[in-house]
């Protein structure tokens, strides 16, 4: 069996070399199975939609499932680089997987375009000319939430996040912009599903608002339990817990919640209108934040392919850096550390018919970069 597999990969490699003679080969490592699969599927679908719309047949995409395990992601990256001989890597959803894969990939001279994760190390000391983040630096949405809290005149926030690096960064990011007092600060257990204890503490703390970062199922649980607890303090959070993919699961509980995002499906620009329409037509569901990020990532790549040959690394890098594409977010450019400089909005959760979705309320941070760019030397 092992021998056969050997021949199999040899054949695949041979075919692959044929295909990349002039085009670009992209390796997408993303989460397609297990509990976090929804995010990966959205990124993949958004990305593939853009590739399809470009009509180019010189972009080949190899997609693999990382199962949300860092060691599997590293293994897949090795496979993509060593055996598939890809030029560009993309797709990773989670910061811990990004930290496992990206430094090694760019050290081997590959380009990496991040459609979701933006750990602070890679924006600061660990930045690399071949690494481009097309989503945000991890702190951005939390910073926007802090800025929003100021503009909404909230002065006594209770803040909570899971006890892991992204959670710690979230609270740091919020506090970086938030100017009021803290009624309380809590770290929950990663993967925790019951928040009765935390909600009781919020109730007792005399806060005037709640900021939380609880991605995925944790956020759904928290919001449902919060709504049912009878507390009616305003809630602010990053878009992750109020995104299209999970809003239906939260239901009424999320109505009226303000959340910060760099994108919303009702952002008024031609690229976005076309994207939302075509995504719905093709996949029969509303696009999510992650789908928009996947879509933008692909369009960035396509713009670079049009401008330069991937074989000429310097030219290709310059073409990427120019970010000459129509982003679904409107204005988009890269800062000195290859992380986006973009606008951040606060959105409100509303109901349209029987579908829960978001509506842009206002702009909170304009042309905002990130706090780590100064540490980046490249």
């Amino acid at each position, binding site marked *: 069996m092992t021998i056969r597999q050997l021949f199999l990969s040899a054949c695949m490699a041979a075919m692959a070399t044929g295909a990349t003679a002039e085009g670009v080969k992209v390796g997408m490592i993303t989460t397609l199975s297990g509990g976090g699969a929804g995010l990966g599927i959205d990124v993949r679908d958004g990305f593939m939609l853009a590739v399809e719309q470009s009509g180019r047949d010189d972009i080949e995409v190899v997609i693999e499932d990382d199962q949300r395990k860092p060691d599997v992601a590293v293994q897949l990256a090795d496979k993509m680089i060593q055996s598939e001989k890809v030029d560009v890597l993309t797709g990773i959803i989670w910061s811990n997987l990004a*930290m496992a894969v990206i430094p090694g990939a760019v050290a081997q001279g590959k380009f990496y375009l991040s459609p979701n994760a933006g750990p602070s190390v890679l924006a600061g000391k660990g930045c690399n000319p071949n690494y481009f983040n097309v989503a945000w630096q991890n702190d951005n949405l939390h910073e926007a939430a802090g800025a929003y809290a100021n503009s909404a005149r909230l002065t006594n926030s209770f803040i909570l996040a899971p006890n892991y690096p*992204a959670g710690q960064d979230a609270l740091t990011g919020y506090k970086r912009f938030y100017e009021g007092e803290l009624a309380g600060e809590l770290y929950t257990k*990663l993967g925790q599903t019951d928040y009765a204890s935390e909600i009781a503490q919020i109730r007792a703390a005399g806060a005037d608002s709640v900021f939380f970062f609880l991605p995925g199922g944790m956020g759904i649980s928290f919001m449902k339990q919060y709504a049912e607890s009878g507390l009616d303090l305003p809630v602010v959070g990053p878009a992750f817990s109020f995104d299209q993919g999970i809003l239906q699961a939260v239901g009424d509980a999320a109505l009226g919640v303000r959340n910060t995002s760099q994108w919303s499906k009702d952002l008024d620009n031609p690229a976005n209108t076309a994207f939302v329409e075509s995504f719905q037509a093709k996949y029969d569901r509303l696009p999510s934040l992650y789908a928009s990020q996947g879509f933008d990532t692909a369009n960035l790549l396509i713009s670079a392919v049009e401008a330069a040959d991937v074989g000429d690394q310097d030219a290709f890098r310059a073409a990427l850096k120019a970010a000459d594409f129509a982003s679904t977010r409107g204005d988009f450019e890269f800062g000195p550390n290859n992380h986006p400089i973009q606008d951040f909005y606060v959105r409100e959760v509303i109901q349209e018919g029987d579908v829960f979705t978001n509506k842009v309320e206002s702009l909170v941070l304009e042309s905002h970069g990130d706090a780590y760019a100064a540490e980046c030397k490249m």
Partner: protein
Amino acid sequence: MTRETALNIVLMAVLLAVPLAAWSLDEPFVITLATRAAILAIAGVGLNVALGLGGLVSFGHAVFFGLGGYAMGILAHHAQTYTPLMTAPFTIDGTTSMPVIWLVAIGVSVLAALAIGALSLRTTGVYFIMITLAFAQMVYYFAISWPAYGGEDGLSVYVRNGFPGLNTMDPIQYFSLCYGVLALVLLGVSRLARSPFGLMLQAARQDPERVEAIGQTPYRLYLTAFVISGAITGLSGALFADLNRFVSPTMLSWHMSGEIMIFVILGGVGRVFGPVAGAALFILLEHLLGGLSAYWHVYLGAMLLGVVLFARGGLYGLLAGREVAHD
């Protein structure tokens, strides 16, 4: 030569031949897969000392795997950032030398296995399974929330650590190194299985009362086996982290414990070379099925179920027949 011995030789030859062929065909990824199989095999061989020889169903071996990984990650991190590991009462610097890292990984695992084993071995049966799981979960949650070494994000090491005389970044050289370690571990464990200790340990698995009646204490045998087992698994953890140049709490998760157990079962419990076959098969399945369908876990589950229900004794049971008592 028994069929089992023949199978052992074929297995080790294939595990060596595939990456060598891949090397000559310039297919480095296949070498990486083989390296992964060899390293996970070491973890399985380690667990097999406790599980197969001693009958100790540890559902928490990821602890040692992860500790080995973190030993590598922490030492290399400090060496690469030129910060000492500790300064008081005396200075300890990090290192990027694999032999030193291995020793530390083994040392840390031995200490952990002593502590966990000494407490857990007071229980038996399901209680033992669950208390080993509990200890693993404790360390897992600790690793996730302890910020100093990256928490859940884990710890990246940008360059693989060094081994005197080798370029470890070259896939085939790193494979050879891991294969060599695997061979040494297999030699050690097959000697151990036939040694006085091995005989007494296997007797303690089959009938602890008998062992007491001939003047030996099962607890001491079990604890020793658990420690040896943990040390080997810890060593494999250090190798695994170096393969990925990365360590994270997933190495400590209960899924990892389950996977190491799967290697042992797929190969055949109690067969010294069984985990090698099990790990190789697992990697192969993951590679082939993973490409086939996003729902490949269904197939993996079905296969596993098939092995447990209908192919007792795993691959070795199928291919080599009933275990032959060796004189």
